[in-house]
């Protein structure tokens, strides 16, 4: 599958060749507005800041572009969001002079802007989200963060993201319609009522941002007209005039064609990206809500199928042009410039019928044609997914850039229903980011939390009686492995530690949430999430119809494997003395005795091989966590939304690498500082019985309760998909995945030889895309440890 035209080919090459940059325009406008309007309510401050940015930032239309609108002064250039955090910017600039000397995820800041940026930082110091979080964070939580049993920096330096707004509404009503809603709500306010003044400010700020969004589009219309006038090529001039007409109409008015609809979706998506620093801002069920426009245009000969393809490809290139800069401390958690802009296709209608349509195929093909890391394409499978569509998905998968990822209606819908989501809404779910699910336009931020719980760290500390061997901290003392009498007693100690750290992870989440609500409300986004306008509340204040958040656990497989080894060797067979185990762990299995011990540990049962001995421990461990986390409420509980709770999730992006990097050798035979296992996937290289065994092992987990999503990564060498028969077998595998009620599965179809070659000659493999975990990245941009981790994942071989 190739891109449909030379135009797209050129645009693609252009965007791929760009060295990621940093643009300070947004930071400049936001700082100005904050400086000038200290006394204004925060809503208005942020509305005006966004307005000033949209109305003054540099805009451009590249030659050949059909969809227009840019995030910063150039493609693949990250704006700066100083209101979230600045210390790390200052620190990296001081230490390294720029952002282009990092191990991975390199950015270049033009020298001439450095001084101004440092000036901007001065203003924000002590006022940022991060500063406020730090100031309100309990000491205990700080210590736990130093231990890295929990980690929440992502939230506190970048904001929420993780949302799908109501694109359908924008297409149907236009922003004009939404403004009208806000105006009506405003005029219905009785200002003498309690809280009415706050609501007034909020609604006014909505009107300001939506109007400025319309203005933003008008600026592109003007630019297109100017360019058209100077354009010698009449065909291009015609295109530019069409672009101008589109931008005059959308997003202000309802979309009247497929082309307008795509442009409108892009503007709405783009403005969210400029407003907030969060990632995983997603597009929802694109094939569903764009289809009526496509169908109408095709019937009436407004567009051809080829042109529709081209527009989609242009949209993907636009998505890829979006980029965000993160502190090095966090970029390890999501390596490879990920922005997790998810597009969901397939699935079912609310009547429970298959929802695949022509656009689903076109989206699949166009994503395959552009072969970029964005969008993060998800396919919703269900019991009646058409065979042809499934085969098409496999064909795309075979191309080896990690897409699409598969999600399973048969467990996700029941899981949502069990959490109180209405029938129609549950059937309409879409993916957000990588494996999290939400109801588009009705769900609050971060259906995945961003406070990580490092399960493998907790396990390590339990062995040492609660003390962290790396930092020496001991927050909760329990009996160490040498002090317990039985495996059950050891398990109890672990449970105590888990309860303790789970609670701290919630506190950490609350610290972030409380300050996000107070300091950086997203007005534009809130305007497009139901029922924020009606309630007069931002999403963060409880404006969304649903608001549930997942915790994030890392290392379930390591915990299960460690527990199995301890149970079997220390307590059942008694061939390993606890003291000896601890000694070996401390020596990182490097002494002669250590090598022997490691061998024994590695030979113990491992999760991922369909072996009940260890799988049951994984289930038990997970249940402990499930039981614990559902006890807690998020900061929106009781303030309007359905839910207001926490549930588990294993969408751990690539955090298994930095999380493992703070943990010494563990009883599963894992060496110190090496990566933990990903999501619910088996530990790298320990799944020896092939993909069916892995699927069976994972299927034993209480997936229906893991509403935050359960991540399973599999790497296949391409020969597993060679030939019609093998592809059919693969389809059988996927159908069984559906029947086993697994949440999500994704495949890296690439041989390790290829990956090694890419390490040696990165220039040649710029477009080698791999799935890191829940998202795709250019392999060559990943840091060496993540690269190694990807290579070491067991390559499943067919017999």
């Amino acid at each position, binding site marked *: 599958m190739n891109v449909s035209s030379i135009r797209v080919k050129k645009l693609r090459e252009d965007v791929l060749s760009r060295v990621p940059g940093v643009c300070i325009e947004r930071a400049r406008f936001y700082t100005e507005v904050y400086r000038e309007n200290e006394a204004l309510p925060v809503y208005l401050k942020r509305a005006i800041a966004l307005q000033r940015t949209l109305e003054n930032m540099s805009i451009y239309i590249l030659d050949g572009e059909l969809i227009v609108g840019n995030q910063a002064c150039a493609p693949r250039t990250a704006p700066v969001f100083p209101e979230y955090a600045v210390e790390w910017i200052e620190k990296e600039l001081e230490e390294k002079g720029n952002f282009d000397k990092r191990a991975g995820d390199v950015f270049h800041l033009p020298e001439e802007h450095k001084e101004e940026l440092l000036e901007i930082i001065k203003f924000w110091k002590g006022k940022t989200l991060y500063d406020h979080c730090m100031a309100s964070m309990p000491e205990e939580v700080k210590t736990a963060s130093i231990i890295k049993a929990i980690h929440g920096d992502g939230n506190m330096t970048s904001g929420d993201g993780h949302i799908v707004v109501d694109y359908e509404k924008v297409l149907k009503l236009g922003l004009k319609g939404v403004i009208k809603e806000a105006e009506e709500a405003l005029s219905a306010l009785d200002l003498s009522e309690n809280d009415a003044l706050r609501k007034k400010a909020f609604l006014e700020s909505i009107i300001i941002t939506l109007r400025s969004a319309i203005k933003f589009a008008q600026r592109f219309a003007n630019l297109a007209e100017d360019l058209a006038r100077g354009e010698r090529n009449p065909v291009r001039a015609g295109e530019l005039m069409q672009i101008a007409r589109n931008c005059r109409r959308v997003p202000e008015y309802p979309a009247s064609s497929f082309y307008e609809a795509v442009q409108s979706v892009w503007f709405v998506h783009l403005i969210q990206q400029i407003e907030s620093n969060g990632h995983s801002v997603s597009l929802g069920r694109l094939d569903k809500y764009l289809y009526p426009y496509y169908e109408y245009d095709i019937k009436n000969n407004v567009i051809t199928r080829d042109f529709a393809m081209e527009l989609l490809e242009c949209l993907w290139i636009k998505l890829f042009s979006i980029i965000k800069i993160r502190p090095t401390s966090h970029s390890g958690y999501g390596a490879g410039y990920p922005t997790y802009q998810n597009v969901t296709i397939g699935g079912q209608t609310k009547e429970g019928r298959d929802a695949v349509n022509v656009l689903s195929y076109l989206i699949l093909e166009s994503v395959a044609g552009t072969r970029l890391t964005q969008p993060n394409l998800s396919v919703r499978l269900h019991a009646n997914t058409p065979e042809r569509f499934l085969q098409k998905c496999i064909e795309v998968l075979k191309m080896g850039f990690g897409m699409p990822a598969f999600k399973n209606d048969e467990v996700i819908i029941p899981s949502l229903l069990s959490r109180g989501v209405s029938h129609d809404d549950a059937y309409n779910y879409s993916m957000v980011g990588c494996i999290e699910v939400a109801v588009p336009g009705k769900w609050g931020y971060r259906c995945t939390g961003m406070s990580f719980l490092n399960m493998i760290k907790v396990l390590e500390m339990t062995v040492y009686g609660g003390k962290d061997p790396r930092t020496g901290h001991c927050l909760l003392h329990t009996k160490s492995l040498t002090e317990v009498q039985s495996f059950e007693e050891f398990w109890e100690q672990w449970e105590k530690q888990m309860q303790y750290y789970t609670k701290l992870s919630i506190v950490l989440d609350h610290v972030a949430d409380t300050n996000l609500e107070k300091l950086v409300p997203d007005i534009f986004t809130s305007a497009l999430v139901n029922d924020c306008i009606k309630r007069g509340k931002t999403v963060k204040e409880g404006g969304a119809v649903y608001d549930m958040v997942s915790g994030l656990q890392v290392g379930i497989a390591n915990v299960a494997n460690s527990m199995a080894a301890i149970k079997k060797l220390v307590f059942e067979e008694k061939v390993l003395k606890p003291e000896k185990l601890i000694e070996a762990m401390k020596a990182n299995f490097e002494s*002669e005795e250590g*090598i*022997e011990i490691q*061998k024994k540990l590695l030979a113990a049962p491992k999760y991922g091989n*369909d072996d009940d001995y260890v799988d049951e421990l994984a289930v038990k461990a997970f249940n402990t966590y499930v039981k614990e986390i559902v006890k807690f409420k998020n900061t929106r509980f009781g303030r309007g939304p359905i839910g207001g709770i926490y549930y588990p999730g294993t969408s751990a992006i690539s955090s298994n690498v930095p999380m493992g990097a703070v943990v010494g050798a563990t009883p599963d035979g894992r060496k110190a500082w090496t990566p933990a296992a990903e999501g619910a996937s088996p530990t790298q290289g320990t799944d020896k*019985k*092939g*993909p*069916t*065994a892995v*699927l*069976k092992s994972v299927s034993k987990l209480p997936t229906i309760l893991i509403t935050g999503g359960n991540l399973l990564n599999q790497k296949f060498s391409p020969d*597993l998909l060679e*030939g019609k*028969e*093998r592809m*059919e*077998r693969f*389809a*059988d*595998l996927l*159908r*069984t995945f559906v*029947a*086993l009620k697994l949440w999500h599965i994704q495949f890296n179809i690439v041989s390790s030889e290829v990956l090694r070659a890419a390490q040696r000659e990165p220039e040649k493999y710029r477009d080698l895309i791999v799935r890191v975990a829940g998202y795709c990245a250019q392999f060559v941009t990943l840091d060496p440890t993540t690269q190694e981790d990807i290579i070491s994942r067991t390559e*499943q071989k*067919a*017999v």
Partner: protein
Amino acid sequence: MRELKKTSGIICEIERYALNDGPGIRTLVFFKGCPLRCKWCSNPETHNFHPELYYYTHKCTFCGKCIAVCPYHAIRADYSRQKVITDRNICRTCGECIKACPTGARSAVGMEMTVEQVMEEVKKDIPFYLRGGGGVTLSGGEVLSRFEFALEILKKSREEFIDTAVETSGYAPWDVVKEVISYTDHVLIDIKHMDPLRHRELTGVENKLILDNIKKIDRSKVHYIIRIPLITGINDDESNIKAIKEFTNGLKNLREVHLLPYHTLGKSKYEYLERIYELGHLVKPHKEKIYEAAQILKDSGLNVVVGG
């Protein structure tokens, strides 16, 4: 060696998600032991009926621990290579050296399993068999050499509604074949060479029994597929393929033939077993040769699958 009852046998390996040995997703059960010795065999670990030792030279650090522990003094040092050598005639596969080796350079291939143990593994992938008609495939080694054990597995699988397949050289008395195929949904049977003498030379046995069995299988109406290993310069000549064609022309119920081009994936296994691979130097058959052979067989209306 202890007599094995029909309720247990020596299994080399049980592989799941096998894609080439019958319809759908299958679980492949490798029996250990075979009366044939095909020179190109890529599974030498299935030759002998008893468990054996694998020795991974590349992992061996020449520490000598295995030598010290072997109760039968089967291991000696090879100072020139800085490796050890195991006298396979003395070794009883007692496993002591495996336990002692610090680097995992030694492991056992083949272990006794009961029917129940095999079934437990086979049943694990039932959810996968249900789509695409997969099931269990008994392979080897020669399944028919341990037909009582095989029969038990096949019967138990039928009881569980699991699709059954058997891969065989066909070298067994007809009574045995007959009974086994009555519990088998798909028989995959080899033709290696049509010339009786050449067959003996290449495999150690003559082909008459095999060809007779194939004719009888054809009349029995069980679904079966003939598989032809294509070995470069050994049996891929036109005259042999034509002879096969002549033979298959006489078969009424044959629909499908698989050509299995020689590959070198078995090479390292010979090293692990410290044996010599007589045909290890062969190159893979040329694409054109495979195509020609396929063409010849296709001409008689057969469905020819390469790889299969």
